């Protein structure tokens, strides 16, 4: 039964618990607010702007918090209400700077709008400005507390949603102000510069620093698109003025993230207009790269590729596709490799991050992607997080994990050699030695089986080969697992019980699991654990690999892999091959091609003579860089398309200028299998071209008819040939996108996988024995070296190191070392030291931190001056061919 009320003479029926503000909204009546954010559950009722008159009440209640009662008669705009609002406004204006004509927020300012609405020109309370200094301590956000109206929104979003607690309300009464850290400025606080506070500030107190003086709200054209950094797939608006991207603002309709963004997404896109963008093709002449026309460049590539193909056969050519490019571009490049070059030597950087996921989960479940959706994480009752520093690498997903723990009472188990930020939220933190994950998983399963906590019904009905797995697992008692992993047996027992007894438990993992010579084994172990306890095929459970790049899921889906076409259809399957062969009107190769590292090895040996690299940077990202770079140098004909000169581009024979995500249309697929539209916001810079146009032009040049008017047409071809993308068509992607599998144009997409049955039918258990990492510490190289990313940079740094703010806040590579190790070696914090492995050496500053366990050294791989991959080991996982980035042996030396 609803409550019957009358609001501004409009009769209305609303459910119990509805606030007056929401009831008014329902009736189409506008009530101004300053502090309330009802959509985020924040209604402090403190600004008093939303007051209304309720018949029978003597005071004016704040409509954002006051619930309606049956029979209530409400006036939202009576004389008394207007008077009250006017007074609140005049009080606020008495100490608010009246510099609206030059204020960045003008046009989008709640205070300005309210003053206009109520016709308030000046304050009856006179003027008493606060004269507080600006906080310009950091490169991203300017805080002008003189303009602050103390609505509390920024504190709310920082503390309750972002959960960083960088800011708070400090001091009292008229001296109240928002303080950051110890009130010394944002830079010196715990701030991670997500800028959520900027997004919710109703006035000009929090401003995007880099966009100052570059335009105000009414001057911008907004284009809703998807962030091109990590695999979260956050939506936002590019704000365009004078054909330039000026800034990024939140768009609350973004399905994955709402208004939430991280520092890279919100403040890290200034690279788009860097003046060192490549704006014309280059051809190497007499050893030097010189500007050339498109015609020259394409002709040369066509001639060379044709010649190499003629002389040495199709398999002497290879292409590296890109997880940074769209689905359409990846599809076209794999088509180009297979149909035109005639080789299956096509791969991309997913080989280096999640190929073991694709291999492992495909074997166990039949589908190598996140089983569940990002939004489901918050409702899991237990989360087992392993090998993922989510806060830094998938910041928006980390918010869901924090929400699960702090708001919904979930228990978090963190299994990670590093003391990552989320360890703070964990009920149990298991600090395993790097490279011992299988033993840890087996130890957990040993406890579950021995204590009878397994889901017998699920195992019986939905899986196979359980006994084989059980036989191996029974060997790994918690005590044996402790010996291998260093995790106390009691903690293993505790974690096992928590996981096994949860109503819905979700495993979330990332490259700490995949980037090992035992990567596939690790992934199979996650699947074993989930199936053993029946934690698959339900909402908020499952096995959820977090994909690193914006479109690494899509690049895999599109078949930029040596063994499959789009939709994971095997090149060795003659029926599939026939289908593609007919569609493309050409004979297709049936031999599985080479993977990234294998392509470079073959190039090193001279077996591969020509490589086309689309927007990737193997000369920074591959393991054992000295060897990789040598291989690229030896490649007879290397073509690179990219926005910027990269370490790989410097070795190229031809460079083609590509574009940023802001300059093209297309789709990308995020880590939860959601296909979303990216939209062209500006014209390509200089003579740069979107990669899909480059591939088409090159194909035409080589005599193959490849012509599309738009990426939408390419998607139609993809949908026709790819069952899991069968219903994915542009008109359906306008709003929320679609999650594959989506087999036909009426299918709503799939929120979580394996509901009734696994993609492969029955889930398959694999017995997995523990194997040691390929290279272990010894007397000469006594430390374990492990690599990863940091919040402020991305991948090989090609774009983030061209973002002014990101570079200012995190300017150089750091070697993370445990305090005990530092003391033993007499190393000071910030001291430059030399780190060397059997393959190379680098120098960088140290950061002494408890984050690193004793004997473990961590470094990010973003910095060419101290390229971590000069040290890493190119030993490969035998199944997925992923290199072991996470474990190798190094030594540290002081520099005299």
């Amino acid at each position, binding site marked *: 039964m609803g409550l019957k009320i009358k609001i501004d003479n409009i009769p209305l029926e609303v459910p119990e618990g509805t606030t007056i503000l929401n009831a008014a909204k329902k009736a189409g009546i506008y009530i101004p607010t300053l502090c309330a954010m009802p959509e985020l559950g924040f209604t402090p009722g403190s600004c008093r702007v939303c007051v209304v008159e309720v018949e029978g009440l003597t005071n004016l209640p704040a409509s954002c918090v006051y619930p309606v009662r049956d029979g209530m008669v409400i006036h939202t705009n009576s004389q008394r209400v207007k008077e009250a609002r006017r007074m609140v406004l005049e009080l606020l204006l008495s100490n608010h700077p009246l510099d609206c004509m030059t204020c960045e927020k003008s046009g989008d300012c709640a205070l300005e709008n309210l003053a206009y609405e109520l016709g308030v020109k000046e304050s009856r309370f006179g003027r008493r400005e606060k004269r507080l200094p600006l906080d310009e301590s950091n490169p991203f956000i300017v805080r002008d507390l003189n303009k602050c109206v103390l609505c509390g929104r920024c504190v709310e979003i920082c503390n309750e949603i972002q959960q*960083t*607690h*960088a*800011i*708070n*309300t*400090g*001091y*009292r009464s008229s001296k109240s102000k928002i*303080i*950051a*850290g*110890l*009130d*010394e400025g944002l830079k010196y*606080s*715990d701030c991670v510069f997500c800028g959520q506070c900027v997004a919710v500030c109703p006035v000009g107190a929090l401003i995007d620093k880099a966009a100052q003086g570059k335009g105000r709200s009414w001057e911008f054209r907004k284009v809703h698109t998807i962030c091109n950094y990590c695999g979260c797939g956050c939506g936002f608006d590019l704000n365009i003025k004078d054909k330039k991207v000026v800034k990024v603002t939140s768009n609350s309709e973004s399905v994955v993230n709402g208004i939430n963004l991280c520092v890279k997404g919100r403040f890290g896109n200034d690279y788009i207009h860097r003046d060192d963008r490549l704006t014309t093709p280059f051809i190497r002449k007499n050893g030097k790269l010189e500007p050339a026309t498109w015609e020259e460049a394409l002709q040369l590539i066509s001639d060379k590729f044709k010649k190499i193909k003629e002389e040495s056969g199709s398999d002497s050519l290879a292409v590296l596709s890109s997880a940074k490019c769209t689905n359409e571009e990846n599809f076209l490049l794999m088509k180009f490799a297979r149909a035109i070059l005639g080789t299956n030597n096509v791969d991309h950087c997913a080989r280096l991050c999640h190929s073991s996921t694709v291999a492992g989960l495909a074997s166990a479940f039949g589908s190598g992607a996140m089983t569940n959706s990002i939004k489901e994480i918050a409702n899991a009752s237990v989360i087992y997080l392993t090998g993922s520093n989510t806060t830094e690498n998938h910041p928006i997903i980390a918010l869901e994990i924090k929400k699960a723990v702090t708001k919904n009472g979930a228990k978090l188990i963190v299994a990670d050699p590093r003391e990552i930020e989320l360890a*703070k939220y964990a009920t149990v933190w298991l600090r395993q030695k790097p490279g011992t994950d299988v033993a840890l998983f087996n130890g957990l399963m040993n406890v579950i089986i021995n204590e009878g906590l397994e889901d017998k019904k699920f195992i019986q009905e939905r899986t196979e080969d359980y006994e084989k797995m059980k036989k191996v697992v029974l060997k790994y008692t918690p005590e044996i697992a402790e010996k291998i992993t260093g995790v106390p047996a009691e903690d293993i027992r505790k974690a096992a019980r928590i996981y096994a007894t949860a109503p819905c438990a979700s495993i979330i993992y990332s490259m700490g699991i995949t980037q090992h010579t035992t990567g596939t084994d690790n992934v199979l172990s996650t699947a074993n654990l989930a199936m053993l306890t029946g934690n698959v095929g339900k909402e908020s459970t499952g096995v959820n690999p977090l994909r690193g790049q914006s479109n690494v899921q899509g690049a895999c889906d599109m078949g930029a892999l040596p063994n499959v076409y789009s939709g994971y259809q095997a090149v060795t399957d003659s029926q599939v091959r026939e289908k593609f062969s007919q569609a493309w009107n050409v004979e297709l190769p049936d031999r599985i091609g080479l993977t990234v590292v294998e392509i470079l090895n073959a190039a090193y040996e001279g077996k591969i003579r020509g490589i086309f690299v689309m927007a990737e940077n193997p000369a920074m990202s591959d393991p054992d860089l000295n060897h990789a770079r040598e291989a690229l140098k030896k490649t007879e004909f290397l073509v690179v398309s990219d926005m910027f000169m990269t370490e790989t581009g410097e070795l190229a024979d031809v460079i083609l200028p590509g574009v940023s995500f802001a300059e093209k249309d297309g789709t990308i697929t995020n880590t939860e299998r959601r296909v979303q539209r990216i939209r062209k916001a500006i014209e390509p810079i200089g003579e740069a071209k979107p990669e899909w146009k480059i591939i088409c032009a090159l194909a035409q040049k080589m005599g193959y008819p490849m012509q599309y008017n738009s990426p939408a047409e390419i998607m139609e071809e993809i949908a026709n040939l790819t069952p899991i993308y069968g219903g994915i068509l542009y008109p359906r992607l306008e709003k929320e996108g679609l999650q594959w599998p989506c087999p036909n144009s009426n299918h709503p997409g799939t929120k979580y996988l394996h509901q009734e049955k696994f993609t492969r039918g029955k889930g398959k258990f694999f017995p997995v024995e523990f194997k040691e990492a390929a290279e272990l510490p010894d007397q000469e190289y006594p430390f374990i070296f492990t690599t990863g990313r940091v919040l402020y940079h991305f991948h090989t740094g090609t774009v983030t190191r061209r973002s002014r703010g990101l570079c200012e806040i995190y300017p150089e590579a750091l070697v993370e070392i445990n305090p005990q190790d530092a003391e033993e070696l007499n190393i000071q914090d910030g001291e430059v030291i030399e780190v060397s492995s059997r393959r190379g050496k680098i120098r960088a500053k140290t950061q002494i931190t408890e984050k690193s366990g004793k004997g473990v050294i961590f470094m990010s791989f973003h910095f060419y001056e101290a390229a971590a991959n000069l040290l890493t080991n190119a030993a490969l996982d035998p199944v997925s061919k992923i290199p072991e980035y996470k474990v190798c042996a190094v030594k540290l030396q002081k520099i005299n």
Partner: protein
Amino acid sequence: MGCLCNQQEISEEEKYKQLKEFIAENREKKGYLIPVLHMAQVIFGYLPDEVQAFVARGMNISTSQVKGVVTFYSYFKTSPAGRHHITVCLGTACYVRGSKKILDALEDKLGIKVGETTPDRRFSMGVQRCLGACGLAPVIMIDEDVHGRMTAKKLDKILDQYK
């Protein structure tokens, strides 16, 4: 808690050790920030930023949360007390007889504001609403001594008595 008198005699290191122990005993208790800050102030005499940061780390909360609480309650002091504490009465009687001018003059002479301490730690200064000596208004108090019928001119001579 043990005996905490004669705090001046123990080293900084010892003070942090005491605080650390107190935090370790209480960190799991909900809403225990205020008692911890209270104890920190007893140990250190006041709550400088370093101590606030130490409390934040120990309690596993952010510095802004600690600072927010410290700056909200007037009980918490963020600068050390001077050897001599001056209290200016701003009660009604003193106020109408010009105690604000005396306060301004003191701020001027000492170069500090209410709640602050001179760099040489000779004086710290605070205000009160009434000292109960309205007959002598305007009144200031230095340590235990009441000085009545104050004027700005008399200040130098009075301050000289306190080294």
